[in-house]
């Protein structure tokens, strides 16, 4: 591209740039985010944190966001009943536009999330990043790890295939006793050994309880990371 056309392009884009800056300033002024933006713009990141091992938390987040997007799509067509689950999965895979891809991406992203979160925990442990003052960040992270595994297990129940039997056996074997707790035992229906109860309980956990819980804990996790920064190098 010659100088003349570059100049013309810059001139054409200038109003767009000005509009963007004006809009940004307008939002910042009205939302009271001036201080937040100033702090963010002056914030620096330690050089050792550029190592890919320090990006694993970010990879986990991206996988979670992909899961949320594909999950919204799949939930629109999924039918959480003993007779309807397998049929709706079949419809998603064969009749709905992009259904096969959404289901496939959901499955891949779930595996990426588990692997990334395990490696992230291992990295934090190896670098001793859980020490004072980051104890709460670590504890919140461990709870997020537990939520991730519960997410995967409850997700296995939903397609009502061979893997669902595996998940129902695992969950009822390990957590079925929780259903015996007086008054609140029903909350643990996802750990039932009855297929119908396990399916509705798992669906409820997978699309309502766990997403809300994971988002709340993620917000606290990010706040604490922002507050204490990234730990020092080894």
């Amino acid at each position, binding site marked *: 591209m010659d100088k003349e056309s570059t100049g013309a392009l810059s001139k054409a884009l200038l109003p767009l740039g000005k509009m963007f800056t004006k809009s940004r300033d307008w939002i910042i002024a009205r939302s009271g985010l001036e201080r937040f933006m100033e702090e963010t*713009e002056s*914030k620096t*990141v330690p050089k050792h944190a550029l190592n890919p091992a320090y990006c694993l938390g970010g990879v986990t987040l991206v*996988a979670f966001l992909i899961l949320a997007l594909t999950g919204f799509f799949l939930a629109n067509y999924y039918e959480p009943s003993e007779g309807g689950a397998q049929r709706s999965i079949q419809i998603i895979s064969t009749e709905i536009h992009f259904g096969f891809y959404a289901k496939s991406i959901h499955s891949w992203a779930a595996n*990426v999330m588990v692997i990334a979160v395990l490696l992230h925990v291992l990295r934090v442990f190896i670098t*001793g990043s859980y020490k004072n003052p980051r104890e709460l960040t670590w504890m919140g992270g*461990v709870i997020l790890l537990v939520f991730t595994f519960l997410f995967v297990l409850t997700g296995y129940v939903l397609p009502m295939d061979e893997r669902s039997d595996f998940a129902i056996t*695992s969950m009822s074997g390990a957590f079925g006793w929780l259903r015996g707790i007086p008054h609140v035992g029903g909350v643990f229906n996802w750990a039932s050994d009855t297929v119908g109860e396990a399916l509705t309980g798992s669906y409820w956990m997978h699309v309502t309880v766990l997403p809300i819980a994971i988002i709340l804990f993620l917000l606290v996790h990010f706040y604490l990371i922002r507050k204490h920064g990234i730990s*020092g190098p080894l």
Partner: protein
Amino acid sequence: MTEVEPEKESKAESEERSRPFLPNHIMEEIGVVFLITGIILIAAALRRPEPFGFPNIFFVGVLEMIDLVSPLFGALVVFAVVILLLAMPFLDRSEEQHPRKRLIFFAVILAVVAFWTAFTVMGFL
């Protein structure tokens, strides 16, 4: 109650923190986001809806332990590992970060990983 001890940072260390969060670091993070998204999309495009097939590798170890001992024992072990992880900052209170200087804790976690791996392998046999 333990006081929160903010990390002391020397001037040299402070200068090391020279990479601005905005836009440099965040742009790199966006790069990683696209890379991961791309990998997932390509993987899905290859039409392999189940990445590792059945049974899933992450839970085989726990299920094997439940099969070999008892469901309650399996649940107690999982619960104990979670409690151990939650309590780690209060058990490992030294200021040392390097694994070589935290050998006991490192050995405990390695043992947990080794047991998990062993049960997973047994589950596949």
